[in-house]
């Protein structure tokens, strides 16, 4: 008897999460490169003993909007938390947290249920490195960006412009529509400055048609 009571009280924290039961608390999904938004749903049911009142759905990012299909779930009700993620310029693996804030029956205690959406947003064109740097006074030698097309269709560079005078650049096509190298060299490195290359392509997806590659001549950071 004592043992059973002990096990019961020790195990209580593990089950104290309110009356809602989620089929999944973590969702993984992917988007296609042309998507502007991704929608997803967390399904749940009220397996508790009281009606559950939804107080709020908090999100970790202004890029996310989320709401439940009802504000009160009776015992046995099934529910949906529907969320929409605005992709914008996000790429790669994005982890976005949501918190469902609810109240069990007439209780004043608030339950918070954490949910996680893991979104894989494919990039179409990757530029490596993201930033080319020279130090002030460094030898003025050529450095290179690599532009790789990861899209299913080939993408071609139509034109490149440099935001700064005093830099020489050239484009080398390593594999047509798939791999390019952009070589960049400052005429001199006597002054700190920032600049960028605007790379215009024929990518069918408008938001990926122009890419930027950044460079700088940097001096030591102030302490």
């Amino acid at each position, binding site marked *: 008897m*004592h*043992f059973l009571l*002990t*096990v019961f*009280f*020790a*195990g209580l*924290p*593990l089950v104290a999460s309110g009356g809602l039961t989620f089929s999944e*608390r973590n969702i993984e999904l992917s988007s296609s490169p042309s998507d502007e938004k991704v929608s997803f749903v967390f399904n749940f049911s009220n397996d508790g003993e009281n009606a559950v009142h939804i107080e709020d759905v908090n999100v*970790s*990012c*202004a*890029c996310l909007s989320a709401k439940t299909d009802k504000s009160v779930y009776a015992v046995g009700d099934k529910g949906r938390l529907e969320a929409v993620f*605005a992709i*914008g*310029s*996000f790429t790669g693996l994005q982890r976005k*947290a949501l*918190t469902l804030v609810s109240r069990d029956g007439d209780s004043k205690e608030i339950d*918070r*249920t*954490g*949910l*996680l959406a893991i979104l894989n947003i494919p990039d179409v064109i990757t530029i490596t490195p*993201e*930033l080319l*740097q020279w130090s002030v006074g460094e030898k003025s030698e050529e450095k290179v960006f690599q532009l790789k097309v990861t899209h299913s269709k080939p993408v071609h560079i139509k034109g490149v412009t440099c*935001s700064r005078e005093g830099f020489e650049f050239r484009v080398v096509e390593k594999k047509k529509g798939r791999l390019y190298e952009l070589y960049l060299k400052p005429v001199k490195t006597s002054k*700190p*400055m*920032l*600049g*960028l290359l*605007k790379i215009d392509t024929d990518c069918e997806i408008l*938001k990926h048609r*122009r*890419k*930027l590659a*950044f*460079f*700088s001549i*940097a*001096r030591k*950071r*102030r302490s």
Partner: protein
Amino acid sequence: MRIFLQCVLIAVLTTTATLCIYFFHPNRPPLYFDPARLAEGEVELDEVLKWVGKGEVVWIDARPGAKYAEGHVEGAFLLNEREDFNALLLPIYAELANRADLPFVVYCGSDLCAASARVADLLRDRVGIAEVFVLKGGSKILRDAGMLP
């Protein structure tokens, strides 16, 4: 002896439950709370205001454009990933580049908002700005200070 063993058993079971929650629960609380502790790359408003007095800071607003339009810190530039970072950056790039020697301070909705940290990373690692900080407390602190409507 029997009571002592039961106490030990209770302690072991509750510690195990606590550790399981700490390592696996998505909403676990921190083990300690130190409100004065700054995360790496964070800065408090008091420190920034010293720079503002000398005209030596660039404000970056990482909130959505609609929030920025409602009101922003005087002279702040809008940059976020939600609405295409590069598209927002291009029109203001020359101005930012000309002020690249100054510290950049990024703010968004709150301490829980990850947008400012992400924009700070992009400014530092991609654009090449040397000194970029995230404002601790976000727009709430600025509102309390009367710098945001």
